[in-house]
């Protein structure tokens, strides 16, 4: 079997934030390659540049220098339409705060990305229902976010991220606003989707529960990649999912 496809390639990326009188160097030269189908966790303390790197990979921010390739496309070269296309079709976003549209039902939330992608109504509803079933929320399609628990909202968000069968799911602290058990559920769901659908999951996190399911952990410290650990090198002593019984 040949080498796996590199779905994300980050090369020599630096990012400065100009605060007027001072310029803050947040990323100081990051090189990173992510293989398709893997489950990646980006770990690092607050202020390490983790979120900034994460936003770059998601095409939400542009680097000061260096290049970010998503599926071999240079993100910096894209115009507004192409960026929207990329966000719609290639990437599914999951947020710490769920970010469901409060005025819409669970099903409607899931079908918005499909509408943006030009999928017809009937087809969108059919796929939306299937996705709700897949995340274990069949029958809750008519509920608004306010009528769902945090874990259920995050499940809807996961289904929404999968709406257009993206190649990458970006999850920013997906368990940050959830309790321990619910957080584990979401992690397990993401892992399952990554292995069954072959989606690359990239998540920025503080949550050590994540480590156990990750194929690769990227440690960011002070704007640089500190180390990249493969699954087998991980020290699984942090509890959580490792003990299945």
């Amino acid at each position, binding site marked *: 079997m040949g080498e796996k496809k590199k779905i994300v390639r980050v090369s020599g990326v630096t990012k400065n934030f100009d605060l007027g009188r001072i310029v803050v160097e947040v990323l100081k030269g990051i090189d990173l390659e992510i293989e398709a189908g893997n489950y990646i966790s980006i770990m690092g303390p607050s202020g390490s540049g983790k979120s900034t790197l994460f936003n770059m990979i998601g095409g939400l*921010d542009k680097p000061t220098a260096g290049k970010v390739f998503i599926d071999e*496309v240079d993100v910096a070269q894209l115009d507004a339409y192409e960026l929207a*296309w990329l966000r719609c079709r290639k990437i599914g976003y999951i947020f710490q705060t769920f*970010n469901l*549209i409060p*005025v819409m039902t669970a099903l409607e939330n899931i079908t918005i990305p499909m*509408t*943006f992608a030009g999928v017809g109504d009937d087809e969108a509803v059919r796929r939306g229902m299937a996705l709700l079933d897949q995340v274990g929320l069949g029958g809750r399609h008519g509920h608004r976010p306010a009528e769902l628990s945090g874990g259920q909202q995050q499940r809807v968000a996961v289904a929404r991220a999968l709406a257009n069968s993206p190649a990458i799911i970006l999850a920013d602290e997906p368990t*940050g606003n959830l309790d321990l058990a619910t957080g584990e559920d979401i992690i397990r769901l993401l892992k399952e989707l990554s292995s069954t659908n072959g989606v690359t999951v990239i998540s920025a996190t503080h949550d050590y529960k994540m480590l156990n399911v990750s194929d690769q952990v990227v440690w960011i410290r002070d704007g640089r990649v500190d180390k990249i650990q493969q699954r087998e090198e991980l020290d699984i002593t942090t509890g959580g999912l490792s003990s299945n019984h």
Partner: protein
Amino acid sequence: MRRLVIVPFRKSLQMAWQSLRVRFFRSLVTTMSLVLAVAFLSFIQTGSDIAGGLLAGDGATYQQLLLQAGYDLSTDGNSIGGSAKQRWIVFLSLLVCVVGIINAQLMSVSERFREIGTLKCLGALDRFIVRIFVIEAALQGLAGAVTGALFGALAAILAALVRFGLAAAAHLPWPEIGTTILAAVAIGTLLSLLGVLYPALVAARMEPVEAMRVEQ
């Protein structure tokens, strides 16, 4: 790379309508200043339409009554002279109303920052965001302006009947009143659209990365 499909208008309309319906009281407050301003405009304009109708219908009887009621008649006493003061007050009330709408819509944009950022992450184009806000404002504007115009005209007619007696009903100039109501509705809707332009641009220019921020 392929271009994004443009979201059909019907779908945008549906989203805007849903957003208004769910936030009904919020939208009502935004619309209220428009209702009041348009009602005022409609009241003043219908009032002078009626005065004109009374003069044309039975000038001899009503000339004195109109003068007593405070209307400015033109020098020949056959038509209603428009008062500059009145025009200014109407103009000012509309101006205040637009500022009120801008204020309310800006509030609504900042309340929905995360929602807008999320939509952009999901692949919405700037113009879709603008469109949603403009459609919402158009719906609000139309509803508010129709309510205000009818309310103002009705109040003006009732006031005229009370002041000049029921006999005045025979001289009510219906075509002019109708035109006034239509004009007031048009002006109201236009003001609502005018008021939403800047807030909608603010919303559309927002970076999707805002949706990622935890603190609201």
